[in-house]
């Protein structure tokens, strides 16, 4: 293979990656899920008891919702570690500009999980935590059998299968082309 052909190949690969990046950026645009905001808020609240990162954690949490709202969740003693060793959120129930996100978390050194609902309000594109609430019967996190916060729509699964077929066809074509081009090159050599 000549260096020029190699460089051309590299440029084509680079352009393909740029195009894929552009598609992904377009697909990601406009998504602002209350579940993600609730999860980040809980993670930030958990960090407010960690040594060395407290101030920053408070800032992060306050951007999404008041830390004072989380007071019932924070255990009495955390030994300067995160307040919640693990946390999980479930699918939100959205009603107009209000969302209810079920959560389950373990407080530091407490065996029994803490469960409840985080209530968020939408302002512009962003969701903000306003209060905590008790769960209603249908509100569960995935590990309790509840729905995941988000999932791929059926259409996307179809697109993925079609995409897989296209990749198969493209890969086959590439292998066939390399075989032909090799034969041509050897024939003319």
């Amino acid at each position: 293979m000549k260096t020029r052909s190699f460089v051309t190949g590299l440029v084509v690969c680079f352009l393909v990656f740029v195009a894929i990046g552009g598609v992904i950026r377009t697909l990601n645009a406009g998504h602002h899920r209350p579940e993600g905001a609730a999860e980040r808020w809980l993670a930030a609240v958990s960090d407010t008891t960690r040594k060395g990162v407290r101030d920053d954690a408070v800032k992060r949490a306050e951007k999404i919702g008041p830390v004072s709202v989380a007071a019932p969740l924070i255990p009495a003693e955390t030994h300067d570690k995160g307040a919640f060793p693990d946390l999980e959120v479930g699918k939100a129930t959205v009603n107009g500009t209000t969302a209810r996100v079920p959560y389950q978390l373990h407080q530091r050194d407490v065996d029994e999980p803490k469960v409840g609902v985080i209530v968020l309000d939408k302002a512009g594109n962003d969701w903000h935590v306003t209060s905590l609430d008790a769960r209603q019967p249908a509100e569960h996190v995935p590990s309790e059998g509840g729905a995941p916060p988000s999932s791929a729509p059926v259409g996307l699964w179809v697109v993925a299968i079609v995409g897989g077929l296209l990749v198969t066809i493209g890969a086959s074509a590439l292998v066939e082309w390399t075989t032909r081009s090799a034969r041509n090159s050897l024939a003319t050599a």
Partner: protein
Amino acid sequence: MAQPRGNGSKATSKSVKKAPAKAASVKKAATPTAKRSATSPAKPRKTVATAVATGVPLEFEPTIAAVSEPELPRDEGYLRLLLLLLISAAFFEGYDSSILALLLPNIQSTFHVSEAVLGLTRIPIELGLFVAFFVTRLSDRVGRRPLLLWSVVGYTLFTALTAVSWNIWSFAFFQFGSRIFLGAEYAVGVTMIVEEFPAARRGRALGTLLTFAALGTIVVGVLLGAGLQDGPLEWRAFYLIGLLPLLALSFYRRRLRETRRFLEEKAKRDAGQSVEKVPFLEPWKPMYRRNLVLVGLIHMLRSIPLFGSTAWWAFYAERERGFSSGEVAVYIIAAYGIGCVGYYVCGRSMERWGRRPTAMVYFAGGIFFSIVLFQVSDKVVSFFGLMLAVFFGLGMGPVMSSFATELFPTEIRGQAAAWIRNWFEIAGYVFGPALVGILGDHSTGAIGNIGDTVTLLMVLQIPTLWLVWRYMPETKGMELEDIAEREVAVVTT
């Protein structure tokens, strides 16, 4: 959860078996010159030195049959010491990669970043392995020993700096540096084994190295289960623990000697004898292009979902399935225990039933059980899903290594394997975790679900089944020379 390098011992067993025959012919040769002409010419020998040094991992260890025995054998004690010292390279290759994968939620928490940013930082980090490809090539010029020692120093330095990272980008930069030196250390370690061990024992020595790469992952799981991440230094302690044995090894490695084959080559250079070197683009020549693209595509399509899934499983288990850190650790330890069996069974299957059927079964099993793993919520099913996903998904290393090596003639085998590894498969290291992080971001991702994103990416592996079935030649029971002749015939007729 990092992927240990594939098992080269089975894939190269044929090469190992061939070596004594070559050694026998060497003994018949009266002089070193005659010996070379009777076994392998100067060009392939240089290729061996270059190829193995250019970042070819265990999975692609390519050139055992091509390396003829040097004049002075190493004593048993030195070989044992050499293996013991080089094991650290493989161990920390598994250990270091696993820290990043298994402690992702902790690292995310410390640096307060989204899943998308976490995914993006994996790009520069994993590109370190790509750079290692070029760094390792220096070992042909400066020698194996100095490059190995400097790579230990470099890896130690960047690992220490990783422990004191102040934000996600400093973390990414230090991990990038660490990957460069770790990749170089690993590749030079493999080179030294290949160049120093007698042919009949190289496969076993390399197999031992591979086992320790898996052990590195298991040790991270054990430390995770012991709660090291809950200590005052949190995840940073994992990097600092990695320093202690390395500092000791830096001292003991002074007992390492330069390999005899490198000294032989250096003497030839000093004497003004030209040593032919395989050009960088040699594997792209018409004769080999088809197989390079075919095997490269199979590696790339496998690696993107594979590394996306291994990098994010711990995060997925904790945040989307409600696993505790302790449960994740137990699952990892058990899964990697079974995963080692997957390597063994794969090696035996490809010898008994052939490369193609083994690859088909392993690809199908890997896809199926990965989808089960990332779709079910039941923890018992998840446990078996993880074990079998590792068994099939990672355990197919031997058959992948046979594809990457057996289809190419000896004089370009190493270069071809390096291309497949460092250009095609690296796409998986770089883009797999990034795609999952960006698309699966719980707040802004188009899919917003790590489990579904990984499952969708698994679709990419389905074309590999077709490519193997339609195009991949069977090489079971064939000598390497016969395979090379047949492959040339495929292209020319």
